[in-house]
């Protein structure tokens, strides 16, 4: 059983294409409870990788291992390797704070900083990391808001509170906030689960656009969403990676029965 999963996690095809993120034998715990079991998979640069699976399968834990966020929960622990652009982010020499500047993250519920304006929300990552050049900051903010498809909606009211925006705009603000640090990888933990269908479709459109520049890893409950926007899909169950492959293959012709049953809605 274990051997088979590792097979699944191995490179899909032996192309010369570069893998941006290589996950090797990740095990994750909350206290004594093991939430991830020997998960391995590789993600190509500038693609969208989706993690799907029923609640509690470990997909959120896995994504939180990719920017060293998981270990910040009291009692949580990780073993294994995550190689981002050739560097193991779990190496002892790596500062977990710096990892998060390279690997951005967007959360399930939009969480703009309530005391900050739209501009300051986007600038927060720069300002609070010690960048003082005002001209540079305002350039980056415009670029990031453009990148998050929010600029046209807010360009005349950058001084307004971030919280005054609608839910979907707030989520795009959070995406802009992450983009301002020009991350190599963007993690999205169910970014549309708190949004209405129209706001969700805007985010999906944005994800398709963003993958031209960034590698995106997205956790989603919504299988249609995974099918629509991702290039590769991993199906997880009870902390294990059951199947991983190109999205088309996973949805049309899965190898494992469990995957097929989940995708066809028999359980989940």
């Amino acid at each position, binding site marked *: 059983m274990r051997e088979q999963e590792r097979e699944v996690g191995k490179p899909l095809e032996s192309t010369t294409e570069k893998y941006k993120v290589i996950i090797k034998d990740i095990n994750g715990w909350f206290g004594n409870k093991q939430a991830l079991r020997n998960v391995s998979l590789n993600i190509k640069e500038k693609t969208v990788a989706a993690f799907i699976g029923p609640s509690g399968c470990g997909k959120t834990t896995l994504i939180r291992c990719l920017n060293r966020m998981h270990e910040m929960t*009291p009692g949580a622990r990780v073993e294994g390797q995550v190689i981002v652009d050739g560097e193991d982010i779990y190496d002892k020499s790596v500062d977990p704070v710096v990892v*998060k500047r390279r690997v951005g*993250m967007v959360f399930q519920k939009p969480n703009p*900083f309530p005391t900050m304006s739209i501009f300051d929300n986007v600038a927060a*990552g720069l300002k*609070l990391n010690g960048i003082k050049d005002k001209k540079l900051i305002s350039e980056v903010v415009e670029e990031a808001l453009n990148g998050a498809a929010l600029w046209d909606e807010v360009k005349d009211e950058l001084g307004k509170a971030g919280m005054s925006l609608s839910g979907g705009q707030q989520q795009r603000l959070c995406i802009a906030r*992450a983009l301002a640090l020009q991350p190599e990888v963007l993690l999205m933990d169910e970014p549309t689960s708190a949004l209405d269908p129209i706001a969700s479709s805007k985010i999906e459109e944005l994800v398709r656009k963003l993958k031209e520049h960034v590698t995106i890893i997205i956790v989603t409950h919504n299988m249609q969403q995974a099918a629509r926007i991702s290039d590769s899909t991993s199906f997880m169950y009870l902390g294990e990676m059951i199947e991983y492959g190109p999205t088309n293959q996973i949805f049309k012709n899965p190898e494992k029965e469990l995957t097929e049953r989940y995708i066809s809605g028999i359980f989940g």
Partner: protein
Amino acid sequence: MKKRYRTRIIIDKLVSVFAIVCIVAAIVPLTSILIEVVKNGAGVLSFEFLTASQGSIGSGEGGIGPAIQGTLIVVGLASIIATPIGVLTGIYLSEFAGNGIFPSAVRFLNDMLTGLPSIVIGIVGYVTIVLAIGSFSVWAGALALSIIMIPIVVRVTEETLKIVPHSLREGGYALGISKAKITMNIVLTTAKSGVLTGIVLGIARIAGETAPLIMTILGTSLFFSTLTGPVDALPLRIWRLASQPYESAHAFGWGAALVLILMVLGLNIGLRLLAYKRGFTIRTEV
């Protein structure tokens, strides 16, 4: 079914009436005190009363200038000492300490300190400063009052910071921001109205303390001269005026009480206005 519905309505009404009775019971003493103080104290208010020092005993001349000045100095100094210590301790307990033995001990001792009789804290000021420098002094009073204020600020700061949603801290972590900056620039700014509330509550509390001041600043009828000498304060002056056998002294006492109430009220309203202008609200409950 219908009967059960009727009982429900009756119980609902009864609870409402009981709640209203309790509110009245709480408000009546408070308003009657206020009315009494205004009625007896408003008459003596004048520019001279607020600025002049006391005339000869029983003459009904002069005012409570030194007491107002002394209260401003002692309470001001005490809050300058207590605010940073209290806020930083609150930050430590909420953000950095976790639930180990040491932070639990700090929390426990802090709660003990809140319940300590203020006269005991006055003795602390007396023993540590008054005996050491050989004179009643402003410093001793400020120290004693700051010891009373610190636990209030600690408690309110910790509780307010804990209400700040964890998702905001995670949002900060996800941007690679250090914990110290997240705490100061995201968590504390989000909770600033609550923290300010704690400081205002603390100041209001120490502005009215009398017992620790008897043992530390003593009280005097003169204006402030040195930080290492005695000074007057409103609560002390009220107490001394009330224990004199003259009608005019009693009237001055009421006037001083009214001034003290107005000062605390003014501080409260002033900070609220400031907060309102800056776009956040101040809660007055703990």
